[in-house]
Structure formats: structure tokens, C-alpha cells
């Protein structure tokens, strides 16, 4: 089963990933090849097989709700592309 350029555009929108026209064409071709290969999984009957999302059994881990030392705000903000008054600055969202 192939994936069309229109589907590529839809997925790129979901992923917030800008693609140019060439990239869209190439992506449609390459994703189709990979998804065609993934079709071999259809040969397996998995109707009564439970899914495994973690190989080793996991359980939730809780801790006391008490304050512990954390990183300095300034140090964290040093990596921000744009900041102002201890906040990340982004383009205007609300008109």
C-alpha cells in the first residue's frame, strides 16, 4: 500500500515539520517502500496476542510530594533562543 503526497502533507502537518516539494515527493516514495516492507507483519496472526509496550514489567513509582533542589532558572534559560523576564518568548499567539 502506497502513501500519497496528500497523505505526506497531512502527516507533516501533524508532526509540525515543514517539507518542500522535493522532500514531499521523496518522502512519499521512501515511506511507501518502508510501509510495503512492514506489510510482512500482516502474515502473522496476532488476534489473541497482547501488545508489549515495555519489555521488562514496569510499575508506577511514587515519591513523597516534597520540594527538592532543582536547576537554576537562569541556567535553564541560557539555552532558550529568545527570553524575557524569566520566560520563554514566542511569536504572538492571541490576536
Amino acid at each position, binding site marked *: 500500500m502506497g502513501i500519497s503526497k496528500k497523505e*505526506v502533507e497531512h502527516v507533516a502537518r*501533524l508532526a509540525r515539520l515543514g517539507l518542500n516539494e522535493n522532500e514531499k515527493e521523496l518522502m512519499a516514495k521512501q515511506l511507501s517502500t518502508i510501509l510495503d516492507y512492514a506489510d510482512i*507483519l500482516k502474515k502473522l496472526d496476532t488476534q489473541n496476542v497482547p501488545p508489549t509496550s515495555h519489555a521488562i514489567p514496569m510499575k508506577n513509582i511514587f515519591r513523597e510530594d516534597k520540594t527538592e533542589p532543582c536547576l537554576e532558572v537562569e541556567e535553564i534559560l541560557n539555552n532558550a533562543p529568545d527570553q524575557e523576564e524569566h520566560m520563554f518568548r514566542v511569536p504572538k499567539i492571541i490576536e
Partner: protein
Amino acid sequence: MFTKTAHELHSLLINRKISSMELTEAVFARIEKVEDKVRAFVTLTKEEAIKQARAADERIKNKDGVTPLTGIPLAIKDNFCTRGILTTCSSKILANHLPAYDATVVHKIKAAGGVILGKTNMDEFAMGSSTENSGLHPTHNPWDLKSVPGGSSGGSAAAVAADEAVLATGSDTGGSIRQPAAFCGVVGMKPTYGRVSRYGLVAFASSLDQIGPITKDVSDNALLLNFLAGHDDKDSTSVDLPVPDYQKSLVDNIKNVRIGFIQELLGKGIDAEIKEIFKSAMKKLEELGAKIIEISMPNYEYAVAAYYLIAPAEASSNLARFDGVKYGHRTREAKDLLTMYNNTRAEGFGNEVKRRIMLGTYALSAGYYDAYYLKALKVRTLIKQDFEKAFGQCDLLISPVTPSVAFKLGEKAADPLAMYLSDIATIPVNLAGLPAISIPCGFSKNLPVGLQIIGKAFAEETILRAAYTFEQNTDWHKRKPPLE
């Protein structure tokens, strides 16, 4: 002295035959000499390293908390956060990223007195099998500069093979420690999922990622694993089990250990010379007293397909954090928020990362979730069950690490699926969360060949013992690449 192993250097250091300062300077001189050819590093931290070496020498002089890692120069893969030192994941999107904290593993290495030489090159965000996907530059295989070192921990494996580092750390999501270790003729282990804290490791596929040691021999692998392993409150998937002293597993005896070879990994698609070399290694293990059993794992052939749905799905979610707001690159073209996201990610990510984000987003999207992502998770169960069944009959499993020796730079770059299929032997191990090692077991076309030894969950000791026994009775690990 830069060619020696950490366990050899440790005794020279504590007997004051050499100082960490001399050793560190010798390793930097070696880097100076061969790095132009190999290009294993993305950042060198000589100034810091010299300070750490001086501190290590003080510690040794005062006999103050000396460990087997004290004064040993080592390299860290560039997806481990290092406080105040560039951590780029070999991606343009993190080109200027200076973490505010150390990964737990880095913290432990520093506390033990290790000397950090710098950060090693990798496939961008650990996505790849050749280190050609690095957004910075490719790395060359020290055995043949026209060939790839493997990936994604290609910089770490090449640095150790070229004697540019005594030890190195790597991370392994589908083979990213074992495959480059095999291609570069060094020893690389992926421990059991949960054995090592992932705190501060930039996440690729969280249910598969695991940190491990890349070293010149099996003894050093045990030595470094001792410092990596252990529970960490900061990683809730790290397992709270006691950590054995892995150096105690270095026993030259595998009498009556039951070793199964995976029949499906000696079939089509595996290079004929690799098969022959693997069979000789198997015979060696038998001569040394192991009981060899044939094992069938019928679902092995489905592992690559399942992995390339699961890993990209997790990656598409993990990499959503690179949005140009909190850290890393932000586009200059950002008139509104959506354009800012789209352009930042378009400019910052390389082709393979984009491909996997797209593949993962598709597999998780409405209408395709059941057919692709959920189906892959069910197949993951079948693969896990294959291993459980196999380990009912044997203590360890063996296979070749790779279907071929290191390929040429550029050879598979245009064909993503061909690149993906080169991970056929290593991927199933990550899906099942098991530990496995790659050790040198021969040469084909003057390039190293790796033997994979897989164990039950948390059976790193059994793996190390078998690997050590094989190594003590062979000389493959002693060969050095012709770099001069």
C-alpha cells in the same frame, strides 16, 4: 601507553609508574595524530580533561577514594548531557546546546575520577547504522578509512579502535553499540533494559534505549559496566536490583554452559564469509566446553519491520520537544507560532530524522494506529516469547552481529530500507529488552567481524564470562588497525 586497556593502566597508575597527566597527554597526542583521518569526536575538552587528570593524580597520591576508573581517559557519546559542555546529538537543531546538568552516568564517571576527553560523533539523534547521518561530519572506520564505522555510536567505537580513547560510552536502541563495535573490532555491550539509568540521555525510543560500555577488551567492559549500572531515582525505568561486581565474572571457564545458535541468522542475507567465521567461533566455544544447541526463532524475520514502526513512533513523540522554544535552534522565519515550529524543525533536522518522525507520526495517526503501531507491539510480544522459549533450552544465544562487514561510505546512504535491514541480528534483542555483547571473532576482507552473545534479562555476568573465556583463548581483540 595509549594502546593499553584500562585494567592495565590502572595498575600502572596505582603503582605510580605513570601519572594520569602523562597518560591524558599521550592520548591527546594520539588524537592529534589520527583524528584528521578518523574524525571520531565532535567536541574535545582538553582543558577540563587536564584538570580532571590533575585531580586524579592527587587522589592516587593521597590514596583517597581511588577506583579502577580514576585517571583513565574516556570518551562520551554526544547524546549524553554534560554540564556546560556542548551536547548536540550530532544535530544542527542542538548545535549550541549547553546542558545545565550531567547525565547520571556522566556524574558517576566524574565521581569515580574518570578523565573525559570529549564527545563522540553519532548518527543524528542516534538514528542510523553508519554515523553518516551525523549533521556535523561523517566518521571513518579506522580499519579502512573509506568504510563506515557503523552507528549510531560510530564515533565512540572508532575512538576506542583508533586508541583515541581508552574507554567510551554508547547507547543502543536497535544495535547502536554492538554493530559499530563489530565493525571497528572492539567490545560493546548493551545491558538489560533498566540496568543503567537513562537520566540525561537524550531520548530516541524510550522503551528500547539503553546505555552501555565500548572497550578494547572484555575485562574493560566489565570494569566500565560496574560504574554505569544501578538504580537511579531520576529514571523510574531503572531497575532497583543489586549490582554485582562484574569484574568477578571474568572467569576462564564455560564448561557445560548451554549455548544456542540462532538458526534463522545463518540463512539467506548473511554474507558467506561471516557465516564461516561465525561457525569457527562456535566450534571454539564447543572446544572450550560449551554445549552447542540449535535454536529456532521463527519470528526473528519480523523484527526489523516491527522495530521500524515502534522506534519511529516513540521518536516522533520524543522529538516533539525540539520546537525552537526552550533550547536549540529557532528559525529566523517565525512570523507566527506554526510557521516557527515548521521552519525550525525543517532547518534543524536531517533527512533520516525527518523520515523517522514522518514514519512514526503516520504509524500513530488516526486510521493507521491499529494496522501499524498496535500490530508491531503484538509482534514484539511474539519475539519476546521466542526468546523465552529459547532460554528454556539454553543459557546463552549466539549469532553474527551483522550480516556483512563494514560497508563503504555512501554505499547504503540512498536506500533507507537496505540500511535498516543491516540491523537484523541486533534489533530483536532490544525489542525483548535483553542484554547482549559484541566481541571480535575474526576478519573478513581485512575488516573485523563480531560475535553476538545474548543473555537472559539481568544475566550480564553469564555473557561476560563466556565472552571472557572466548577472548582468553583467541587473539582477535589484540589486532590493531593500520592507521600509521
